[in-house]
C-alpha cells in the first residue's frame, strides 16, 4: 500500500493523479518513446538515411526557420538542421552505450564481490565510492582531456569507470538484503554452484531491474557530458555535429535575436535527457513497488 494512503490528510490532486498511475504510465510511455526514437534516428544516421546532406551548404537560405524544404530550418551556412540533429545522435549513442556497458559490468563484478564477501571487499568499495564522490566529474574529465586529448569514446569510458563504484554499491546493498532471504540460503544449502546463485538468483532475478535503471541514468549522463564537453570545445569538433557544439555555434545569432539555431539542439537535449530521466524514475518506482510487495 502506498505510504500516502496512511496520511491523516486527504491526498491532494497531484497525489491522486499519482494514485491512478496516470503520471507513471505517461512517464513510462514517454521515456520508452524517446529511447526508441533515439535508437531509430541513430540507425538512420548510420545508414545515411538523412533528409539532406548534413554538410551541404545552401547560402541562399541561411538561418531559416522550419519550412517545407528544410523541416527544421537551416543554420548560419545553410546546412539542414534536421540532418545535423539526426547525425548528432552519433556523437553520444555508441560512446554512451560503452559507458553504460563498462559501468554495469564493472558494477556487477564489484557489487557481487562486496555483497557476498563483505569482510574483504566492502571497505575498499566504500573508500572508492567516497573518493569518487569527492571529485566533480567534469573537473576530472577536464584533467583527463588535458593529459590524454582523448576521443569522446575514451572520455565516456572514463565516465563509465567512475560510475562503477556507485553501481556496485547499489548492488551490494541489494545483495546484503537478499543474502538473508531464505531462498538464497536454500539455494546455497541445496548445493547450487555459487556462480549459478549469483548469476541467476541475484543478478538476473534481482539485479536486472536495478541495472536497467542504472542504464537509463547512465545514458542521460552520457548525453549531458558529451554535449557539455562538445559545448566547451573538447568533445566532438565541428564540422561533425554534436548537439553541444550546435548550441555553441548558434550563440552569436542567438544574442542577435535569431534564437532558433541554438534552441533546436537545446530542445533535443532537453527532450532526450528528460525522457531517460523519467524512464529511470518510472522504472525505479515500479521496482520499489515490486520489492515492497
Amino acid at each position, binding site marked *: 500500500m502506498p505510504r500516502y494512503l496512511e496520511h491523516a490528510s486527504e*491526498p491532494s*490532486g497531484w497525489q491522486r493523479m499519482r494514485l491512478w498511475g496516470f503520471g507513471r504510465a505517461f512517464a513510462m510511455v514517454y521515456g520508452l518513446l524517446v529511447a526508441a526514437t533515439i535508437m531509430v534516428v541513430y540507425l538512420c544516421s548510420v545508414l545515411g538515411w538523412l533528409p539532406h546532406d548534413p554538410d551541404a551548404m545552401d547560402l541562399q537560405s541561411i538561418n531559416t526557420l522550419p519550412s517545407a524544404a528544410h523541416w527544421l530550418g537551416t543554420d548560419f551556412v545553410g546546412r539542414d538542421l534536421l540532418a545535423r540533429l539526426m547525425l548528432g545522435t552519433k556523437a553520444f549513442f555508441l560512446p554512451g552505450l560503452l559507458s553504460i556497458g563498462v559501468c554495469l559490468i564493472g558494477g556487477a563484478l564489484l557489487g557481487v564481490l562486496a555483497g557476498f564477501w563483505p569482510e574483504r571487499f566492502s571497505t575498499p568499495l566504500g573508500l572508492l565510492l567516497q573518493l569518487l564522490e569527492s571529485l566533480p566529474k567534469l*573537473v576530472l574529465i577536464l584533467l583527463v582531456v588535458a593529459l590524454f586529448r582523448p576521443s569522446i569514446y575514451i572520455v565516456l569510458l572514463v565516465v563509465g569507470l567512475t560510475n562503477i563504484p556507485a553501481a556496485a554499491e547499489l548492488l551490494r546493498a541489494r545483495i546484503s538484503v537478499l543474502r538473508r532471504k531464505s531462498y538464497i540460503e536454500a539455494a546455497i544449502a541445496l548445493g547450487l554452484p555459487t556462480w549459478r546463485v549469483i548469476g541467476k538468483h541475484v543478478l538476473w532475478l534481482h539485479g536486472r531491474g536495478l541495472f536497467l535503471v542504472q542504464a537509463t541514468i547512465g545514458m542521460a549522463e552520457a548525453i549531458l557530458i558529451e554535449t*557539455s564537453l562538445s559545448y566547451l570545445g573538447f568533445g566532438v569538433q565541428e564540422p561533425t555535429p554534436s548537439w553541444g557544439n550546435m548550441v555553441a555555434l548558434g550563440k552569436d545569432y542567438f544574442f542577435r535575436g535569431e534564437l532558433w539555431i541554438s534552441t533546436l539542439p537545446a530542445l533535443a537535449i532537453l527532450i532526450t535527457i528528460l525522457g531517460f530521466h523519467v524512464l529511470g524514475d518510472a522504472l525505479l518506482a515500479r521496482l520499489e513497488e515490486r520489492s515492497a510487495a
Partner: protein
Amino acid sequence: MIVLKRTLIAFVKEALRSAALLLLVTLAMFAVLSTAPGDPVSLFVNVQSLSADELAEIRHELGLDRSLPARYGAWLLRLSHGDLGTSLRSGQPVTVELWRTGWRTLLLAGSAMLLTLFYATMAAALSALGRRPILSAILTSFGYVLSGLPVFWLGYLAIYIATTRFKVFPVMMGVSDTSTWSYFWVPVVVLGLGNGTVSEVTRYLRTHLSTVLAEDYIRTARAKGAVLLKHLYKDGFVMPLTSLLANKIPYVLSGAIVVEQVFNWPGMGRLAWQAASDRDYPILLGVVLVSALFVRAAHVIKGAVQVAVNPQLAE
C-alpha cells in the same frame, strides 16, 4: 554544552576522515599523472638536442630517476607546504591562481546550491503537505524540465532576456566596478536552476518529507494542534538538506565550469577550461584538489550539523 561538545567531536572526526580521503585523492591524482603520455623532461628542455648523459643528469636533478613511491612522497611534502608547482602557461604559482579564482567559484556554486535547495524545498514541501496542488505540480514539473535543459542554453537565454528586457548587461565579471553585483544573480540563478539536480533533489525531499509526516510524533503534534514546523524541521528539513548539500555540491561544481564559460565568470571553472586547452596540468591538478576540498568541507558541515541535531548519529 553537551550538544556543543558532541558537535565538536563529530566535526573533528569528519574532518579527519576528509583529510584521509583528500590524501587518497592526491594518491589517485599522482597515479593518473604518472600514466600521462610523454616524457616529463620534454616539458623543460628540448630532448632531441641533448645527449643521453645530459638527459640522465637532468632526470636526476628533477628526481625522475627515483622510484614512484619516493616521488610521491617528495611531491606530497611539497604539497603540504602549499606548493602546487607553477602554471605552465602563466608561470605563476598554482596556489596564486587558485586563490584568485577559487573564492569566485565558491561564491557562485554556494549561492547556486542554496537556490537549488530552496526551490526543491518549496516544491517538495507543497507537494508532501498536499497544499496548493496546482502550484506544487507546476513547480515539480518545471523542475523536471529544468533538470533536462542544457545549462549553457539556459545561460544564453538568461543573457538574452537580461539584455533585451531588463537592460542589465553585459558586464564581464571580474572587472572591478560596482555594476558587477547587479549582474551577479544571473549566473547564480542559471546555475542554481540548471545544474541538473533540481528534479532529483525535489523527489528525494518529497519522499523524505512524506515519510516523516507519516510518523506517529507528527500525528500527535497535529492532534494537539502544535506548530507543525517546530516538530518537523529537524527530521524533515535539516537532515535531508545537509545530506543533499554534501551529495550534490560536486554536480553544482561541474555545472559551474560550464556556467563560468557562458558568463565569462573568471572563476576556477574558467581556469580549468583554459588549463585543459593548454594542457596545463599543474593547474588542473590544483583545481581537482581544491574542488575535492570544497566537497569534503560540505561533508564536514553535514556531519557536524547532523550530529548536533540527532545524537544517535554520534556513535
